[in-house]
């Protein structure tokens, strides 16, 4: 590997924004046939660096070298022409167009008079798709594909050009474990074919499984490159955050109380059926399963966003009908939704207004909203949750993911709920904030809240839960206690293997 020339090399990249040095002399290189992890907490400069690479931002200083040729990356088109392709975290595909049209968007093969050569288009696409061994063809509508398969379309798009370097930005964020395996195979094939790969992820397991080397950014500065085989998670974490991290399970020391929420035979069409469980005060119940197993849908039903087709919900032992989120909230059920920015926050509003959103009607003096009462609530929960923001006037969109999540959690805590449902509590949140959110969830249980945590990350579920409910295809397969859970059993349960068969 050492005698080869790098597929892509960055030298002393500097990018400043008013008041901030977002990138401060970042240099590293990616060899052909190497999977190179790029790690760093949110705000470390990964996104900015990728935008520089993609021609969206121009660096103030430094050079980008592709195959030993310095390149002025002035536009996304330029990046593509130089063989630098991106697989974005948020997919950018046209759902109403076919797979082939999406792959060749902007470069459709033509016949005379500007007519599209459909046959050639479909043939070429199918040839690429067969390399990827995907279960769909060139004519499939992208909108009909799962997220994982849409990602495959993006990868196929990268294969249409002579890619020198492919950048994967959090590719597994919305994939199930089975889908990840497919993705990793594809990445391995790409590596075989001599493409340099930059792999951005927060997930250590993947990094250690997939990559050859790891480069770390912190506060816009390059902190070093480690050879994956010669390092360990602690070393990488320390490089990223400057301290080591304890991810072991905190044993419950507090009393588990009465049943706060009980669900009997709850069903909702094809989404989930005959679901029964209970959550006690002081307890964290984890819902683990593949994407589409019905976990989020159960949460949405409990929160009044979906109407159950059968079953009963009991709150403090009393049967309850929940017809709307307003109903759920007034009965003490709160939901921290999966998609923080899309469902949880009003990004154009400041921190305080977001936090008081559900109860602003109660914070009035006469017809007017009471500024003092609102600020008091904000201050209280900022301190309690250690939300780092310059002040309540800060637009919530300017906060880091971890602090945004704390705003959403604070919003509900200030309503004094009895049941708190947290869907994917740490999605897109950096390592440091992750453990803070985990500790917060444990702490809430210790204060007597009944907490439901839905997560697709096994370490997270194992770390925070007192009990774990494993779901498969809309059904509860098995319930584990924190003391008895074994990872292999858990994986079997969510893959549809019942304990008798196993």
């Amino acid at each position, binding site marked *: 590997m050492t005698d080869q020339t790098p597929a892509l090399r960055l030298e002393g990249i500097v990018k400043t924004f008013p008041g901030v040095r977002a990138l401060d002399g970042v240099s590293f290189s990616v060899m052909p046939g190497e999977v190179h992890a790029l790690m760093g907490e949110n705000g470390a400069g990964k996104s900015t660096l990728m935008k520089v690479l993609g021609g969206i931002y121009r660096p103030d200083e430094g050079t980008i070298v592709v195959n030993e040729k310095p390149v002025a990356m002035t536009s996304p088109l330029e990046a593509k022409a130089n063989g630098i392709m991106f697989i974005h975290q948020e997919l950018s595909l046209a759902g109403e167009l076919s797979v082939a049209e999406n792959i060749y968007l902007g470069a459709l093969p033509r016949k005379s008079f500007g007519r599209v050569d459909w046959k050639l288009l479909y043939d070429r696409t199918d040839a690429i798709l067969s390399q990827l061994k995907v279960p769909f063809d060139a004519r499939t509508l992208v909108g009909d594909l799962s997220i994982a398969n849409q990602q495959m379309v993006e990868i196929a798009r990268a294969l249409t050009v002579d890619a020198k370097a492919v950048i994967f930005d959090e590719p597994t964020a919305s994939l199930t474990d089975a889908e990840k395996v497919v993705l990793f195979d594809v990445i391995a094939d790409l590596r075989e074919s001599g493409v340099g790969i930059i792999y951005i992820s927060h997930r250590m397991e993947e990094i250690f499984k997939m990559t050859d080397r790891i480069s770390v950014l912190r506060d816009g500065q390059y902190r070093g490159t480690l050879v994956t085989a010669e390092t360990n998670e602690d070393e990488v974490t320390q490089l990223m955050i400057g301290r080591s991290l304890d991810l072991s399970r905190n044993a419950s020391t507090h009393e588990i109380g009465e049943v706060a929420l009980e669900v009997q035979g709850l069903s909702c069409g094809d989404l989930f059926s005959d679901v029964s469980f209970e959550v006690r005060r002081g307890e964290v119940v984890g819902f683990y399963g593949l994407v589409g197993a019905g976990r989020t849908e159960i949460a949405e039903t409990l929160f009044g966003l979906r109407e159950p087709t059968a079953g009963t919900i009991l709150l403090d032992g009393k049967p309850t009908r929940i017809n709307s989120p307003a109903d759920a909230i007034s009965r003490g059920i709160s939901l921290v939704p999966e998609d923080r920015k899309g469902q*949880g926050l009003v990004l*154009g509003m400041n921190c305080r207004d977001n936090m008081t959103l559900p109860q602003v009607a109660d914070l009035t003096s006469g017809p007017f909203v009471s500024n003092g009462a609102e600020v008091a609530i904000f201050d209280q929960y900022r301190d309690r949750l250690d939300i780092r923001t310059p002040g309540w006037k800060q637009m919530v969109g300017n906060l880091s993911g971890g602090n945004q999540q704390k705003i959403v959690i604070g919003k509900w805590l200030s309503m004094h709920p009895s049941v708190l449902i947290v869907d994917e509590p740490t999605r897109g949140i950096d390592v440091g904030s992750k453990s803070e959110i985990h500790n917060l969830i444990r702490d809430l249980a210790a204060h007597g809240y009944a907490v439901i945590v839905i997560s697709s990350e096994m370490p997270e579920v194992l770390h925070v839960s007192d009990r774990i409910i494993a779901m498969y295809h809309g059904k509860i397969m098995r319930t584990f206690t924190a003391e008895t859970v074994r990872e292999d059993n858990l994986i079997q349960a969510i893959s549809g293997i019942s304990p008798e068969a196993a």
Partner: protein
Amino acid sequence: MKNGNKTVILKSSAIWGFIVVELIFFSVAGSFLSLSDKAFMDLNNMLLLFKQSAPIGIIAMGMTVIMINGNIDLSVGATFALAAIVLLDSLTWPIFAGIGDWVIPISWALALLTGVVVGALNGLIVWKTGVDAFIVTLGSMLGYRGLVFMYHGEQPTSHLNWTLVDFAEAHFLGIDTATWFLLLVTLVMWIVMRHTVHGRNAYAIGDNREAAVNAGIRVGPHMMINFMIIGFLAALSAVVFYSESGSVNPNDGELYELWTITAVVLGGTKLTGGAGSIISTFGGVLAIQLMRKGLVFLGAGTETVNLAIGLILIAVLFLDKQLNIKGKEALRI
């Protein structure tokens, strides 16, 4: 509420900067080009400007609220005409013949009620059917205009009540009745949007409807209230205007929806909802009226005025977009 952000301040002050530029331009250019020997920034001329801004301005305050909430209302012009007809016609109804000038508050109330009812109808349809407000109010625009024509056919509806005319032409503290109404509506709507629960929730719904629903906010009633507000204001605008003029043509109020939207957008309110300000809309209204008066002052015809306003609208929004792009880059680190 929203001044934690520099770009917001910049944006909201942009319209006032534009107004200052207009004033300077027309004063200077006017001294060379105008046939009139009076200065453009003459006090009477400025007072008249406010008065002439009132009909569009009053409706524009409602449109701001509707657009912040993420909707739009194309039926305001038709509502305006319908309320005007109810006002002028009800003044002559035989059942009110015996009560003299006491008919005036009754007619006012009837006209305003008309506005609230047709607004509520818009809101109810948008709420209950989930059809886009653009489509619903496009339909009701045609429908309400149809009602206007059904009233008297192509004939104008006329009735001059001199008590009413005296009231409309009165001055209080040197300011016209119509201007007082505009200022009062601006103040009240500003307070509603900035300091009440309804205003707060309207912003939240317009910015991120799903998050608002998840916070337990009932979206439908808020939207319906906003449509009732704009219906009321369209009717109020008609009441203020036709109290003085006393005659309504079935085509009156046409294109008012577009003029109000122009004023609102010029003031920086986003078509997509969630952001905007009543005060900036006030600026947008003044800016349009200034442009109109200024160009006429320089001797331009109506067609030139419309062309100029159209171009300026696009130019201002382009500028706004440039400012926003810079802001975004600076914030995304």
